[in-house]
């Protein structure tokens, strides 16, 4: 077929029928975050209920709408009224909601997150507009527009949501025009490096070879990052449309999607989407009668963080050991199997259809001239509201953490951005806008969008140690600075964490960081010391206390703290006494209690239950047995 009109008409009808369904429709979020929270059990419970109550109700599985802290999320659409989203659905609550909606045709506002109104209501409805939710209101969901709304298995849903309009437009206006649009839009690679996307395409497009490749990098190895996963699970067709447009521009007839094997659901949904597109001829020979041929293969990773690096990824697809190689030559000139290759991140590719469909000037409305558009972030850690968000670039960290994320329970300490390649920023940096250069000036990076919020119960030294251990284990081992430099840094941090640190350790860490950053072969090594650099800069006191005083102020590093109850804050409620496994807490009811340090195992169960924040870590007195252990270690 030479256009999608017929298919589009059918899809529009289908979607309309769904929206105006005469019987109830239940949408359930079964992305990985939902499943982790128990969505599968919720789904089977609903199915059982429907069978036993003989209900004609459609169930649609959707992706992640980004409110991960509220999963499992179930949306219920009753005939004639707006779709209402319910969160934290388990057990009893589910039954109450099912009974209310399916039996009694009413909603329960006390459990609702919000409703999807066609037109935002003027008055204050009982169930608020979901887009006014404090976590969603400050966001601008462009790339994630369909996630959690449509069924990622149905091409018709995607088509009904303006899917493939951009690709059809691309075929009409031609590759040069598309390249120009992307150039004007200022789109930069969303994988972290921020290289102008149009430039990479242009270099590859100009290569005279007939055989070219387009690769989507879905390795997403950063711990705590799940932007790409959610997009692939929630709206795989968008990514594929972006891929078709990109491949068309550079002249590639073969594409690879490199996904880490640890994302089986994303792989499954992507596979399904590819098969569907093959069925309708949107992947294959002579797509839409344009003469453009394109085929795509999914290639699974095998558990190596380093394979997120371009040249290592290419080696992996070629069947070789995933080890980076020196550049030049760059992949756009000589890449997969020696042919010109463009590698783009999942999010970059997912953005493309939106830019082409709405125009580059529309895209420039968001963000700022150096950092146009929006970016997805995985907001995780000690915030009250964790999830997947999308904001215009230039939004401040403060807005993200406190407005969208709802702030921290305990006092805010730091935010870790950019995963193992990034750094920790402190309270003084909260007004920094997110962007490529802005965070770099503070010593961190935006990276692929991981944002981990830390409170005063996180030990910064422990965090730096964690990230460095990660990069050291994931190092491919080819170059000495990364392989051995990170090893030595981990050893130094090991000693600091166990109270055996020495004053020269900080200088050594700084010098090692400098060498590793400047001489490593690839991005993994070049950015591996970042967590240490920023933490030393902004949290020097904590290092100092670990080394000089053998004290971990966050109460994390074993042997470097004792616990003490602040008498003024203690109400004598004795909850801590009941949870202490060794009976180390003594005191009379309603009087301040005391922890016997000789018995205390530092499990911190008491800290976790105290409602008055009355228990704090204190340095180990030099006379205690623990202190002498520390002393012997540092000898």
């Amino acid at each position, binding site marked *: 077929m030479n256009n999608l009109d017929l298919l589009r008409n059918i899809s529009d009808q289908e979607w309309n029928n769904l929206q105006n369904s005469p019987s109830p429709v239940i949408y359930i979020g079964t992305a990985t975050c939902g499943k982790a929270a128990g969505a599968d059990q919720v789904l089977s419970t609903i199915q059982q209920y429907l069978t036993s109550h003989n209900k004609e109700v459609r169930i649609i599985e959707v992706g992640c709408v980004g409110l991960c802290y509220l999963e499992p999320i179930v949306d219920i659409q009753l005939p004639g009224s707006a779709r209402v989203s319910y969160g934290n659905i388990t057990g009893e609550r589910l039954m109450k909601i099912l009974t209310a909606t399916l039996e009694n045709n009413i909603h329960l506002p006390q459990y609702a997150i919000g409703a999807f109104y066609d037109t935002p209501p003027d008055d204050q409805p009982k169930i608020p507009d979901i887009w006014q939710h404090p976590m969603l209101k400050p966001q601008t969901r462009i790339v994630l527009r369909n996630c959690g709304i449509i069924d990622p298995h149905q091409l018709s849903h995607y088509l009904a949501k303006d899917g493939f309009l951009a690709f059809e437009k691309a075929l009409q206006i031609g590759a040069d025009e598309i390249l120009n649009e992307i150039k004007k839009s200022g789109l930069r690679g969303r994988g972290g490096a921020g290289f102008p996307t149009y430039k990479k395409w242009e270099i590859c497009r100009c290569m005279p070879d007939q055989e070219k490749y387009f690769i989507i990098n879905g390795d997403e190895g950063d711990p705590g990052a799940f932007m790409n996963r959610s997009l692939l699970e929630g709206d795989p067709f968008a990514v594929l449309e972006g891929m078709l447009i990109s491949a068309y521009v550079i002249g590639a007839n073969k594409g690879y999607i490199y996904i880490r094997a640890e994302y089986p659901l994303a792989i499954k949904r992507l596979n399904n989407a590819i098969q569907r597109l093959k069925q309708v001829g949107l992947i294959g020979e002579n797509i839409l009668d344009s003469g453009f041929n394109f085929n795509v293969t999914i290639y699974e990773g095998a558990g*190596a963080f*380093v394979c997120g690096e371009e040249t290592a990824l290419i080696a992996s697809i070629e069947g070789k*050991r995933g*080890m980076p*190689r*020196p*550049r*030049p030559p760059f992949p756009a000139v000589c890449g997969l199997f020696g042919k010109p290759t463009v590698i783009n991140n999942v999010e970059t590719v997912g953005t493309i259809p939106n830019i082409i469909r709405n125009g580059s000037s529309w895209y420039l409305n968001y963000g700022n001239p150096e950092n146009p558009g929006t970016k997805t972030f995985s907001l995780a850690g000690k915030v009250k509201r964790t999830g997947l968000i999308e904001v215009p670039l230039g939004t401040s960290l403060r807005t993200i953490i406190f407005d969208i994320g709802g702030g921290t329970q305990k006092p805010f300490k730091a935010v870790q951005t950019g995963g193992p390649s990034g750094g920790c920023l402190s309270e003084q940096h909260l007004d920094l806008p997110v962007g490529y250069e802005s965070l770099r000036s503070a010593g961190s990076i935006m990276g692929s969008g991981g944002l981990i919020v830390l409170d005063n119960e996180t030990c910064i030294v422990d965090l730096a140690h964690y990230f460095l251990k990660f990069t*050291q*284990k*994931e*190092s*491919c*081992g*080819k*170059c*000495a*600075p990364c*392989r*051995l*430099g990170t*090893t*030595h840094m981990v*050893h130094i941090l090991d000693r600091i964490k166990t109270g055996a640190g020495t004053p020269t350790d900080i200088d*050594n860490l700084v*010098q*090692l960081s*400098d*060498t590793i950053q*400047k*001489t*490593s*072969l690839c991005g993994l090594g070049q950015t591996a010391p970042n967590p240490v650099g920023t933490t030393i800069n902004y949290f020097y006191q904590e290092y100092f206390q670990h080394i000089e005083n053998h004290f971990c102020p966050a109460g994390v590093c074993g042997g470097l703290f004792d616990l003490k109850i602040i008498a003024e804050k203690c109400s004598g409620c004795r909850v801590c006494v009941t949870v202490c496994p060794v009976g180390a807490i003594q005191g009379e009811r309603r009087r301040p209690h005391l922890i016997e340090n000789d018995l205390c195992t530092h499990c911190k169960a008491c800290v976790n239950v105290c409602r008055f924040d009355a228990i704090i870590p204190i340095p180990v007195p030099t006379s205690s047995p623990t202190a002498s252990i520390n002393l012997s270690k540092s000898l």
Partner: protein
Amino acid sequence: MNPSITVTIDHQILSIQAGQTILEAADKAGIYIPRLCSYKGLPPFGACRLCIVEVDGMRGFPTSCSTPVSNGMVISTNTSSLQKLRANVLDLILSEHPSNCILCEETKECSLYMATIRKGEAVTGCRSCPEDGNCELQQAIQYIGVNNLSLPNLYKGKPIEKYDPFYNRDYNLCILCGRCVQVCHSIRLADVISFNLRGRDTFIGTAFNRTHIEAGCEFCGDCVTVCPTGSLIEKTRRYSAPIEVEYDTLCPFCSMGCNIILQTSKTQVIGSLPGYAQDGARVELCTLGRFGVFETVNQRTRAKYPLLTCGNHQKSISWEESLTIIVERLKSTQPNEYLMLISPDCTTEDLLYAQKFSREVMHSDQVYALSHTNYSYLIGLPNTLRFSPSGFMTLSKKDIILCLGVDQRYIQSNISLEIKKAARRGAQVILLQPGETNLDRYATKILPVNNDHIQFVLRYFADLVSTEELDSKVSSGVMIYQDLEHIKSMITEAEQVVVVIGDQYLENQTNWLLSNWIRNLSQNIDIRYLLIPQSANLETAYRLGLARFSYPKQDGLKPLKFAYLIGIQPPNHLKLADFIVYQNFVLPQKSSIVDMILPAPAFTEEEGTFMSFDGSIHHLKPVMKPFYQSSPTWKTLSRIAQALGVKDFNLEPENISDLLRQCSDQSPCTQNINNSDYQYLQFDSTNQMIEMNLQKPIFRGFSIQEWVKGLQDLPPLKIYFPNR
């Protein structure tokens, strides 16, 4: 021809060719940049990070080994930042390497007094390492300097891998430069080793922890050659004196004529490295040339003095006495009572003098260069049909390489390398062999044929097989008709066919069939043969009319009075002659069977010429003085002739080069011999080999594996159908 461009390196403006890396340009301009993982002929790897430079306009510190030059580039190779960074990287590299000797205060004193301290197995520092003084890491340290080695040492504590032959692997010294992996993968196409695991645990090794033999290592030694540290080291070098001088010479173990570089101390030949070809390219060696030299020339049973057998012991005598005794005996020996057997891996001079002496002085035709491997009929194939290994580069899709009985897993593995490369270029490889070889991966078609059936196959190709015979072979499951027919048609349809003749099927009848088949086919198609006999100088012996492939039967000869064996061992079970003289560089296995032993020099101690399989002439250069009283055979024969009163027999010339000139004037190497002239070749009608049960490969009458122990560990061919 690449265009000329201008770059500036360290304020020097240079006009150079485009298309090279900064490192290559700097090397050519004589500007030194330290490096450990880069190696000529290998693609840039970028692992050691020592070759970093600063380039105006490029951020960071790019590696000069991988960055191509461009017009107008401004490069600094030794700024203070670079110096500091290099020193830090070197510190890191040294933190997992035994570095005790580097900063030790006693290091100067120690190296004066401890010439070879390598008595223990584990290397704890430079002084106990076999590469001390030859190590590229030491060179890097000298140029860059070290920072007090501030980091704690992370010695890996791995056991030394010593259970494979020829070379040991001490991966505690390995700096993961990757050269060995690269050379095994891109140069030798063997893929035996690779990087395993990752991060701190990265190590070089075979897959699944197999031994190197199991992993298919061809023991070519390239990895040992390129290793910058003492991690990979020849077993024979581990406890030897340090290398003082290196010489270019020739490998004597077969007729390929590969150039080798002999590494010597003051008193001993330590080992050999690949040499360089005419065009300056590094030669590829096989196991023998790379690892066989030390144990061959340094073994304990070298012949030192002339010995006379008295009863059941040997008495040491002087050269004069020995010559006197010989002359006495010869005076009363008739031409038909005389026999001289010489090994075809002796020098041309020895062969020439052997022939001259026997024919002109003793007037006897009973002089034979006895080959232990039967190349009869094949050695006579016309020169015009001979294929040159340099021709492998030109073979492609429409060409066929037919390997007949070729087992080049270890010996002559450098030829199988050329075949592999041709296969990668598209040439079709057909293997006819009795067992699995290293070419199986590259073969288009493999026909398993054991010795009993090869003649049938050759007759089938020559259309000499009746339908009944074919049916019986097919129905008994011995042959598959389609396979035979397919190969036959592939051969007829090919543009060029190269027949590589191995030594698995050699036998008179088979050789004759093969030789005829090639000659006949050559009239219709472009067919060539490649035969590289394992005897170094067989071509000369053949052209002199001396070559013989069977041992003369006792009753074919009248009882002999005098036999002179040069590089040949006498048969055990019969007394060849009344008086047997044996001249060789090693003592015979059983000294009591011979009557006189004369010491000859090893190939490292003598000068001489060889003609390789393709007719080109190569020279052997002596690098040591002759061992004890050993003296070259040609000299001995010349002295005997003189003592017998023969005038004008090329008297003992003092000047070796005179001799060489005289030899080459007379040697048929420079004459045109009609190779189809069979009159010089004589075969017994029965063609029985009486006694020659030596295990190949063979050198001067011995199985080389008696000396080079590692050869005994190499597995035999895994036969396809042992019971058929």
